[in-house]
């Protein structure tokens, strides 16, 4: 009995692991070792299977042989029932790891006369335990005794003795009991088994049945108190605790491309973080699947393994449809890099889907998981169940550093306000796809609503789906709003025309100026020639003045010579004119 000492100085209650998926997490280690545990629930809740799995796993995984004392099912029936979970009970019995004892007790068949005790039961149990050195005991269900035996007073005292005896024997026991109306069990067995009580329940919600498990009581230990959905699959029970994984997964700084270069650019140029959770929301026909498939193809081309859960289309249909936009998924599927898993959401309940997904993920070991769309699954349960399921899935994937991409179909209206409110907090990145209607056409736009831990574009981009895949282009955003499609093209043309016009205008103005300049140039040239002309004129005048002075002097000398007497009289005005001409010459 030194099972788990844990890292505490106080000796904790020793636990006996059940090996049942999830149950050991809820009970932090398993059932109380060496003590009886009561498992109660209505008909068809899986009490017997839980008990049987506890025993079988004990024998197979923990090397603890066990005794199954069946009051309701015969050995053959039990073997067949357990075989449906993939357990080879017959083999375990043959190898002396399990003893099966069927206690036949038909109501009314036994006559009671006087006092008795249940020593026979003790003897049988003891005999079986000692035969294989059993550590675990299952009694399914002890309440059959109440139907078979009339003297309840004896029965109760014997039951009390039985549980004490089981404790003394040091075996970990699981006692099953039918759910009572007012109390946990029909015959109040919880009175005797007070260490650990587990309640199973099977409820139908919206025509979908879900099993729940709750640890009602567990003395001396911490345990999950919630109701946990569980299911019975072909590998036994699995309880799906939301809280089983904490928020302490490793994170990667590696970035992975989306397969759409322009989208990568919007995400800080490198795409998403590895191991992050991505949500793509959009109304019908906005291209969620296409982006998902692009992502899948890009991952597979990097030799990563992609598991694609499709809840809307069959694998072949997806492959065919993607072919039309130039995505060739088929070879990648053939290479085993992409694996599709399609199922109708209504095929079974939420938990079953989740368990199936877990199983697929465990088997395929993908690097990328795509769920398309997650909303079909979430519609199956209540919103809290759906959210719980996504939480579990994301936690599970993150723990394994698996990148997860979920698409979410929103019903009309504004995509943001819809049910993702709850889901968005779980997502690291969120792409929003939207339709823009106008000008008699519908166009798709895309934007990054959030991308934790990376610089991302705040722009709305239009994305086009062509034969060659997805093309993300800038949407025109102007005073008249966001323009997409032909409106964007028209706007483009408009802008180009405007550019052309302004170019022409500039050229025209340039020509004008040139012309002006040429005119001025011409003017300058004219002025210069005028100037030249003036200079010539000036020179000519100078020459003229020179010659006239000369002539005058000559004339005077001549006339002096002719009229010698008048020389004084003519001297005045002639000297004046000589002075004037002298001044001119000096200029």
């Amino acid at each position, binding site marked *: 009995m030194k099972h788990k000492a844990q890292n505490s100085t106080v000796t904790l209650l020793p636990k006996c692991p059940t090996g049942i998926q999830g149950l050991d997490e809820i009970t932090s280690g398993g059932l109380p070792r060496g003590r009886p545990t009561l498992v109660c629930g209505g008909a068809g809740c899986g009490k017997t299977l839980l008990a049987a799995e506890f025993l079988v796993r004990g024998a197979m995984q923990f090397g603890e042989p066990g005794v199954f004392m069946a009051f309701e099912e015969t050995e053959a029936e039990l073997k067949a029932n357990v075989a449906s979970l993939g357990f080879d009970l017959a083999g375990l019995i043959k190898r002396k790891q399990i003893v099966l004892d069927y206690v036949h007790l038909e109501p009314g068949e036994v006559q009671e*006369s006087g006092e008795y005790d249940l020593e026979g039961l003790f003897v049988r149990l003891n005999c079986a335990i000692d035969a294989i050195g059993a550590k675990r005991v299952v009694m399914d269900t002890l309440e059959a005794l109440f139907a078979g035996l009339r003297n309840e007073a004896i029965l109760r005292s014997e039951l009390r003795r039985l549980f004490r005896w089981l404790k003394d024997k040091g075996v970990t026991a699981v006692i099953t009991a039918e759910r009572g109306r007012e109390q946990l069990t029909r015959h109040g067995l919880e009175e005797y088994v007070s260490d650990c009580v587990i309640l199973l329940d099977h409820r139908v919600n919206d025509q979908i049945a879900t099993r729940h498990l709750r640890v009602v009581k567990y003395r001396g230990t911490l345990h999950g108190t919630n109701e946990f959905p569980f299911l019975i699959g072909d590998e036994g029970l699995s309880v799906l605790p939301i809280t089983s994984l904490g928020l302490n997964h490793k994170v990667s700084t590696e970035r992975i491309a989306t397969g759409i270069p322009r989208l990568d650019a919007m995400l800080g140029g490198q795409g998403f973080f590895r191991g992050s959770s991505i949500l793509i929301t959009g109304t019908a026909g906005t291209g969620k699947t296409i982006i998902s498939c692009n992502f899948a193809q890009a991952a597979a081309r990097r030799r990563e393994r992609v598991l694609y859960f499709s809840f809307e289309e069959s694998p072949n249909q997806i492959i065919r449809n993607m072919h039309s936009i130039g995505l060739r998924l088929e070879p990648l599927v053939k290479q085993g890099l992409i694996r599709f898993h399609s199922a109708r959401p209504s095929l079974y309940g939420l938990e079953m889907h989740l368990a199936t997904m877990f199983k697929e993920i465990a088997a395929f070991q993908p690097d990328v998981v795509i769920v398309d769309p997650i909303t079909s699954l979430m519609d199956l349960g209540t919103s809290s169940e759906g959210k719980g399921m996504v939480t579990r899935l994301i936690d599970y994937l993150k723990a394994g550093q698996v990148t997860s991409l979920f698409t979410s179909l929103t019903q009309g209206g504004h995509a943001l306000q819809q049910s993702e409110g709850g889901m968005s907090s779980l997502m690291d990145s969120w792409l929003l796809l939207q339709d823009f209607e106008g000008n008699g056409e519908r166009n798709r736009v895309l934007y990054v609503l959030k991308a934790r831990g990376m610089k991302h574009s705040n722009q709305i981009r239009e994305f086009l789906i062509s034969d060659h895949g997805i093309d993300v282009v800038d949407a025109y955003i102007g005073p008249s709003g966001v323009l997409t499609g032909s409106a964007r093209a028209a706007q483009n043309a408009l802008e180009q025309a405007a550019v052309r016009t302004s170019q022409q205008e500039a050229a025209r103005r340039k020509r004008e100026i040139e012309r002006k300049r040429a005119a001025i140039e011409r003017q300058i040239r004219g002025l210069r020639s005028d100037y030249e002309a003036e200079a010539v004129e000036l020179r000519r005048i100078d020459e003229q003045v020179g010659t006239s002075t000369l002539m005058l002097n000559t004339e005077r000398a001549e006339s002096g010579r002719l009229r010698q007497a008048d020389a004084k009289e003519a001297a005045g005005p002639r000297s004046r004119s000589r002075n004037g001409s002298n001044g001119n010459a000096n200029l």
Partner: protein
Amino acid sequence: MKPKKVKPRAAASRRGPAKLWQLRLYVMDETPKSQTAFANLKQICESHLKGRYRIKVIDLLQHPQLAKGDQILAIPTVVRRLPNPVRTIIGNLSDTARVLVGLDLRLAD
């Protein structure tokens, strides 16, 4: 099956057409309780089945593995092996009337 005590058939004279009754009494140890049961059984048989019965007493303390065969839960238990069908009575057999009903001896009366 090793019987601990065997009651030999007493006075075979009155057997007549009736078959031999084979009874098993399962007890645990030789306690006063077991002895009471045996005494009660023997007394009833003597008065109703004189000479036509056999009682095999099985002590489960010594042969615990025998408990499974006759689906023994309670102690003491009387199992009527013969005549068919098998009948089971549990308790110290202090209530004679119930024992007689259990053994189908009411009709024989």
